[in-house]
């Protein structure tokens, strides 16, 4: 079997632990030695080393980095969804003569304040985790969850305000977009709350080892990233809905 020989080689030679990460965006095979014809074949083939596969390290197979990469990729697709809806919004605003901007429900200021402060608290949570201050970490997570739920509640109240003014989904295109965009954003935010709950549940148990601890931090980082993105997205939608009308 081919891989036997390879294995021996790996376990005996790979000890480096101070390699650096590069950004995923710059991920090119710059290290790959090339033959003159440029195909990474033939010639003296040195593998361009990446993660050591040694026993006490993360191998490529369970590197916590994936949470961050995965989250950025997920955000790209969420961004595309909102880009599509934005372009629909802009096009629709320009067609037809039935575009009647709705009055902004006052409650949205509360929403904005809540979500902005939740970004702050999740940053504090992460900082606590880094300091290994687990009680503070849990506390801030909990506060973030509460703020997130508060945001959703104020969104619902804003809907109630509109309904009270007899502004419904089908009333006019602007109200349709208002309900749609807030609903889609809210659904994504709810996903973020589930992410926070997951972190919270997780934080009740102590990490089994440092490796698990690092993974936990990576997961917290990914959720925080998502949360900040939802925050920024809300600000963007807020501006879009009530400036571009």
């Amino acid at each position, binding site marked *: 079997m081919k891989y036997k020989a390879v294995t021996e080689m790996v376990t005996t030679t790979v000890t480096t632990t101070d390699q650096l990460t590069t950004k995923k965006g710059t*991920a090119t095979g710059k*290290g790959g030695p090339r033959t003159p014809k440029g195909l990474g074949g033939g010639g003296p083939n040195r593998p361009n080393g990446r993660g050591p596969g040694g026993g006490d390290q993360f191998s490529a197979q369970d590197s916590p980095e994936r949470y961050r990469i995965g989250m*950025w990729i997920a955000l790209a*697709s969420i961004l595309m969804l909102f880009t599509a809806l934005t372009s629909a919004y802009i096009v629709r605003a320009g067609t*037809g003569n*039935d575009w009647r901007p709705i009055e902004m429900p006052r409650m949205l200021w509360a929403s904005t304040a809540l979500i902005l402060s939740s970004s702050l608290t999740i940053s504090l949570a992460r900082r606590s985790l880094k300091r290994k201050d687990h009680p503070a970490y849990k506390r801030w997570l909990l506060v973030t969850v509460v703020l997130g739920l508060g945001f959703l509640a104020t969104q619902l109240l804003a809907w109630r305000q509109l309904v009270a003014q007899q502004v419904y989904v089908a009333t006019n295109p602007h109200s349709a977009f208002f309900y749609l965009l807030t609903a889609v954003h809210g659904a994504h935010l709810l996903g973020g709350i589930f992410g926070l709950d997951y972190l919270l549940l997780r934080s009740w148990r102590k990490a089994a080892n440092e490796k698990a601890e690092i993974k936990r931090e990576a997961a917290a980082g990914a959720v925080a990233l998502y949360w900040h993105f939802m925050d920024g997205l809300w600000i963007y939608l807020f501006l879009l809905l009530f400036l571009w009308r």
Partner: protein
Amino acid sequence: MAEVEPVQETHAEHGTHAHGEVHRHPAPTGFIRKYIFSVDHKVIGIQYLLLAMFSVFVGLILSILMRVRLTWPTTGLPGLEWFFGPEAAPGGVMNPEVYLALVTMHGTMMVFFVLTTAPQGGFGNYFLPIQIGADDMAFPVLNMLSFWVTFVGLVVLCAAFFVTGGAPTGGWTGYPTLSAVGELLNVPGMGRGTDLWIISIAIFCVASLLGALNFLTTMLNMRARGLSLMRLPLTCWGWFTTAVLALLAFPVLLGGGILLLLDRMAGTSFFVPGGLSNGETLLPHSGGSPILWQHLFWFFGHPEVYIAILPGMGATSHILSTFARKPVFGYRAMVFAMFGIGLLGFFVWGHHMFISGMNPYTAMTFSILTLSIGVPSAVKTFNWLGTLWGGKIRFTTPMLFAIGFVSLFVAGGITGIVLGQTSLDLPMHDTYFVLGHFHLVMGVAAIFGMFAGVYFWFPKMFGRMMSERLGRFHFWITFAGVYAIFIPMHIMGIVGMPRRYAQFTEYKFLETLHPLVVFVTIAVFVTATVQLVFLFNFIWSLFKGEKAGDNPWEATTLEWATTSPPPHDNFAGIPQTVYRGPYEFSVPGAPRDYIMQTEPDPAAQAAPGAINEVQGGNGDGHHNGHDH
């Protein structure tokens, strides 16, 4: 740029993970965990393949029924009355709306649940992790979810056959206002059937996004040591580019689908303008734009074409090189051509809309961009020929299908330069010319890529060879058959035969085409029947096929460096190291005519420290302390 926190270097024991999501999941034992809700990418890959195989046969049956309707629009077949019921097929003649339902379901089934799932979800899932030396996808649970969400999408779509009002009849493009207000206009199939159709597609979008996220993370983060990007097999590049396209295209379709659903259910008017009438009263909508849907749809729809074909391109390159016993000609050019196709694929959607009422100046821009996408496609073709040139070609069944792919890709793709021109689109738009074009290139060529993949990887997946004799028979008839089906369609299009007509009896200018219509139908019958040979071969070989070795094709990439089938974690827990490019065939001086990627060469063994000299920039920051 993400924030990167400093992470402590650790020397922890291999202990039990506190995480729920433990990556190195142990091999499951129970049946349900092992075969149904499995998180093993290999099982999920096979599940995707089976789902696609079910869908492709359903889609095929639908297309046979379509040909029956087209060829004998007035002849009753008693079986059909029994099959569809007396309302839908009185006297054994399908109603025209039944024909449109067949069109819609055939298109949706094939595009989403075959062309998108099989190459990417099926083969990609199974082989991407193995080819990069990983033990699974980056997020195994997510992977399982994406399959089951796809499955739900398929169930919802199939349910549309059985709801009152019938299956959707708006075509797979579902243009409003027909799809939005069809029910108010009493068009059959525009009720619950269309709702389910949209919901199914929305579900599918979510599933594809989860899949794409997983593919990209896996490929960026989990490559084996030494596997720099330019050493990846071209299959991986195909899946990677496809995942990028899916990631950016499906959200747009999802957005469009939500808007359309709101128009139908909540009474909004995103796509429906005012002043529409059903002949008695005005419809309760105003101000929307039907063209907006077309933009959103085709912004997704055109990349979707490449989502279908790029994995096939990857597999073809992989297989051509293996059986020509030659390195891929112009590896870098191949990779860049894929990127070029992927990138340009996002800027050409307007060529579906030249005559839709879009700004004619915009149409001109789209036309020029569209023809430039022919350039990377041509580059790929040249490089395939270059790969074969000077080879020692072994004509195994997968090789036959890969060569067939090249032939069909050229035949189908080249007419794109007709359709991509604004002025020629005037006569050609929405005729059978278009049908012939896209079926050859995104339908049949992509299917040939899949067939090549099945014959090539079957031994790896199931440990047994497929029958070469049956495989060759399958190839000869299918290859000739698809040409016989789709080339005449171009001619029909030149005469002016429009798509989506339930019959061609109403126009004099179409009457002369009757012999061709009959010819195509016969070719469809023959070709479709031969697919049963494939099905038989597949099932028979599962149990009775000749036992396959680990590397029956004498190939070079990582999937052949493990057992057939691979163990639960692909390489029995042994980390893989890659020493060279993916297609080192016929290296002068080497003992055999192939050198596997995992074979160390003498220099590396002599100076093992060299391994860490070069830094492969691929974002694997498992324990870095710095943010660059």
